[in-house]
């Protein structure tokens, strides 16, 4: 049983629906958002989201802005950028800002899943370290 919780953010409804179905079939828990603001709300409401798959090109609030906001408010959440265009620059910019990786649309499902898994791995490693640190802190306090 896969316990990974994903948040898909894209303004293309049809794309979102299909990819949700496909991911759910692979036993991911998937939440969706149609824009940057909505995504932030979702993250606020569901604290256990592991990975956000974020489209770069969106109206109102674009992927880069959303990414900055996510990283500021939920630093532990991993973000995979999904670019519609081949501007590697944008993807590089995103990675500089803390995104885990990037993918080009349309993407292979296997590739996407592999990247998601890696992101989750990184996240849990990260969380483990935090946990360890906390334990150390507590034990130190006791001592």
């Amino acid at each position: 049983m896969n316990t990974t919780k994903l948040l898909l953010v894209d303004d293309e409804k049809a794309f979102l629906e299909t990819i949700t179905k496909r991911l759910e079939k692979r036993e991911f828990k998937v939440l969706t958002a149609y824009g940057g603001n909505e995504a932030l709300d979702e993250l606020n409401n569901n604290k256990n989201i592991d990975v956000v798959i974020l489209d770069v090109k969106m109206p109102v609030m674009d992927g880069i802005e959303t990414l900055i906001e996510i990283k500021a408010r939920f630093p532990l959440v991993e973000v995979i950028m999904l670019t519609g265009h081949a501007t590697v620059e944008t993807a590089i910019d995103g990675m500089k800002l803390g995104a885990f990786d990037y993918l080009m649309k349309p993407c292979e499902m296997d590739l996407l899943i592999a990247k998601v898994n890696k992101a989750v791995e990184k996240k849990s490693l990260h969380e483990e370290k935090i946990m360890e640190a906390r334990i150390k802190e507590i034990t130190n306090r006791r001592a």
Partner: protein
Amino acid sequence: MEASCTDRKSFYQVLTRKIRFLIFLVSFSPMVLTTGILFYRFNLSYTEKIQAHISELVQKHTQNIDYFLSEKLKNIRYLSRHLNTTSKTPKDFLKDNLNLLKNEYGDAFTDLGLINQDGIQFAYEGPFNLENADYANAEWFRKSMERPYYISDVFAGLRGRPHFIIAVKVRAKGADCILRSTINFGAFNSLVGNIHIGKTGVAFIINAKGQLQTKTDVSFKKTSILQMVDRQYYQKSKTVFAQKQEDLGHEYLYVTSMLKNIDWVMVFRQDMADAFNELRKTQLISSIIFFIGCIAIVSVVFALPRKIIGLISNADKKNEAMNKQVVESGKLATIGELAAGIAHEINNPVAIMVEEAGWIGDLLEEEDLKEAENLEEFNRALAQINTQGRRCKEITHKLLSFARKTDSTLNDVQVNDAIREIVSFSAQIAKYNNVIIETSLDESVPYIRVSPSELQQVILNLINNAIDAMEKKGGVIRIETWMSREEKKYLMISIEDNGPGIPKDNLDRIFDPFFTTKSVGKGTGLGLSICYGIIQKMGGKIEVHSQVDAGTKFHIGLPFNEDNIEINSIDKDKLTKKIGEKI
């Protein structure tokens, strides 16, 4: 294109004509006017001057002759008064007086004679034996009898020598008689003969009948002079000018003046060519100058517009080439933007389609559908959708990379090294296609500051094109580098293949976006326009020369800075030194 070419040609022709006409008008008309006016004025004043000079000369001599004649006449009349009162015999009287006159006037008087009413010369003193000569029938005698005095024309008379006579009627001893004297012809002649102007200017005297009264060498037509003898001419002006044509087309200037005492006309004749010799010379010189001027103007009229038009058409050609380039790059930019827009818009639907296909694929995995008889067909169709989706993606990504405006980081690149690297990339695929890649690289080429990945993209693209063009038949690709120093300093790269070449019709369009000769699905037609865009951005140039069945040659020129070379060479020196130390 051709229409505009002929348009321009006719425009140039019109322009040439206009310039020619203008130059002709502006330079020719003032010259003609000035020359004409000066010529006319000079002619006029010079002619006036010559005429005045001759006229004065002729008048002076006419006066001299008049004076001479009237003096001689007075002498004889004086003598005739004394005839009545003298006591001497006529013979002695004549003898004494002739001696007196000769003493006074030298040879002017040849002889003296007295003639009675019947024309018999009863007394004579002189060198001839003319006593008792009968002059009754002589014309001069009859005329002398009719008036108080008379001066005859020149005639031979009884003595058989040209002479003329001054006769005065005297009333002596109750009967009319005539005292006459013969004037020495030679002395008289010298008065006129002294007039000489130029080579042909001579003077002579003629009587009313046009007969010569003086000795002269010249021959002339009587008829041409006769009309000048009319006394009416001379009422106001003292001299008369006339131009007469005589034998062999010779034109003569005649200046005539009437004597007062007698119906004789002083005639001065000179050849026109001689009289106006100086004028003719000036005319000749000015004509030559005028002629040379005309030639100069005509040559300028023909040469200058040609030169100007040449310059203009050159400038036009350059301008046109520049315009073409501007249009080309503008076209590329517009198409780039359009392509980017389309790529964005198409990418999303394609992504959805691919996802949907993937979803169907997922569903087909389910147990109950695995038994469906068309499962294989479904899978094949889905695979096809995926493949075509990927193709779409490739196209849109290429379009976007063509359109994007990257600020690719610049670096100092040694072109030769870059080429060697690319050649090693391509070696495998070249081998597979039976293509040999040869390089001939000028090791002195400088480092240039460009984006290495872009340069790579361009060269790789050209090599791949060359390999594709030669298909599987194989061939040779030659890559050369050298430095060009004509007009601008360029680092030149040429990539030459011996493939089938590019037909002339396609040659103009190969840099256009989406232009491709490859079969559908094999090429996007963007490769060369991307190359073009990159080279343009680098400030360089890319040209293609191709001949069908012989091959195609691409020239790339990249600008470099002369200063960079020196710095680089210094760096190299340092490097080798360091290496040397290490060793």
